[in-house]
């Protein structure tokens, strides 16, 4: 068996007195599409935020593409140098619930900025790729618009293109459709569905869209109180959940 691209080993994450992840263990192999579901506050978004180095964790070990998040001599809350965190982040991209596009940049510049400034790509080349990505998400005609001129669904599709422009090996989606009007959810899910066919791209998706989770993921993980209570292949998971807590949650979201 090949080593997983993501490996959480006994990771504990606390916010003050509150323990959000408790001796957390979780492996993801390269190319796997994993959906994280569960009640709010169960720690699923925290898993993504830790992977993106937006949050430090206190105990345990986390590796991504062979890089350990904590350095032996690492200082500060992240127990790692900025340079090391930079190296880790070069493998990961993230799509946020609230899109977080840069409001003072055009759609095209939102996508081009990081490849030029961080990857030192030539501007022409970066723009060429940005145009390709915009075509893929169906927004090429909006390339000179500003984020405030776009609908939420369009903004999120730009945000996905922006994350992809950095060629991440792991792409994290933190409730990408939760801030959208219901009629705009479909267009964003359509783009994510397209990405699910990318063989090498590892995807972690936090969502409340159960039908979508069932359709695109290789594995569904149910979180409760900082642990994975149950996980499995989606057909089995949704049709025949084993744990009572999972059944309770699924019936509340599917019928609520």
């Amino acid at each position, binding site marked *: 068996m090949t080593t997983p691209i993501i490996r959480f080993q006994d990771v504990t994450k606390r916010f003050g007195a509150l323990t959000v992840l408790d001796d957390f263990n979780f492996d993801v192999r390269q190319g796997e599409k994993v959906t994280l579901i569960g009640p709010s506050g169960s720690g699923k978004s925290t898993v993504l935020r830790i992977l993106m180095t937006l949050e430090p964790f206190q105990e345990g070990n986390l590796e991504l593409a062979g890089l350990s998040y904590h350095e032996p001599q690492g200082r500060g809350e992240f127990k790692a140098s900025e340079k090391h965190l930079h190296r880790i982040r070069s493998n990961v991209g993230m799509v*946020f619930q609230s899109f977080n596009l840069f409001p003072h940049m055009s759609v095209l510049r939102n996508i081009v900025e990081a490849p030029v400034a961080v990857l030192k790509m030539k501007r022409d080349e970066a723009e060429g790729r940005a145009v390709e990505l915009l075509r893929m998400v169906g927004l090429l005609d909006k390339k000179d618009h500003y*984020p*405030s001129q776009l609908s939420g669904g369009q903004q999120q599709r730009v945000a996905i293109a922006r994350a992809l422009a950095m060629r991440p090996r792991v792409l994290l989606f933190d409730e990408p459709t939760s801030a959208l009007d219901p009629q705009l959810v479909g267009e964003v899910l359509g783009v994510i569905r397209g990405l699910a066919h990318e063989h090498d791209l590892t995807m972690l998706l936090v969502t409340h869209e159960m039908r979508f989770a069932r359709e695109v993921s290789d594995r569904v993980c149910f979180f409760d109180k900082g642990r994975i209570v149950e996980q499995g292949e989606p057909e089995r998971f949704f049709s025949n959940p084993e744990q009572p807590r999972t059944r309770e949650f699924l019936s509340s979201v599917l019928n609520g």
Partner: protein
Amino acid sequence: MTWSQYLVPLLKGAQITVMISLASIVLGAIIAFVAGIARTSANPVISGIAFTYVVLFRGTPLLVQLFWFYYALPLVGVSFDPITTGIMVLSLLTGAFGAEVVRGALLAVPPQQHEAARALNFSKSYTLWHISMPQAIIEMMPAFGNLAVQNLKDTALVSLISIADLTFQAQSLRNITLDSATVYTLTLLGYFIIALCLMVIMRLIEMKLRRGAAFPRSAHS
């Protein structure tokens, strides 16, 4: 002496006032950015120094600051001519208030913008100058406009360290002519006209920034 003859000395004074005000606004703005950014630094030494400077200058009267730099500092062997002292002290005062404006506007940039920048692997300085600052600077402009006018009005105090500014000339004229009403009315009018010009200039800069960083704020497609 008629009121039109008052204009010669008053205009001469106004020139000095405008020069001191413009110089200390520009210098003050530079100091404001340096100190305001330093205030947001994670390094406690840097933010501590900036904090001390801001508190000292905001917490003491301008007149005493002027006297201190003009009369007390020479006692330890450091002395400047009155104009330099005036510009320096006004710059430091405007810079201290401006630093709080810069800091406030930087802190008002939503934390999600920083998270997005981090997720795209931008360095901290790149994030400051290309993500935070362009959004923050537009928010700073109205407050900077107020500070500029405040700075102009504060320049009146430099007459007390023997600078022949508008207020100084007004005092001299009144001492000679005893025509308080006319002299001070003209003086008020003079400050008001300069203030109006300043407001227009600041507004133009703000509009230029808005256009340069043009991002329509209304949400429509």
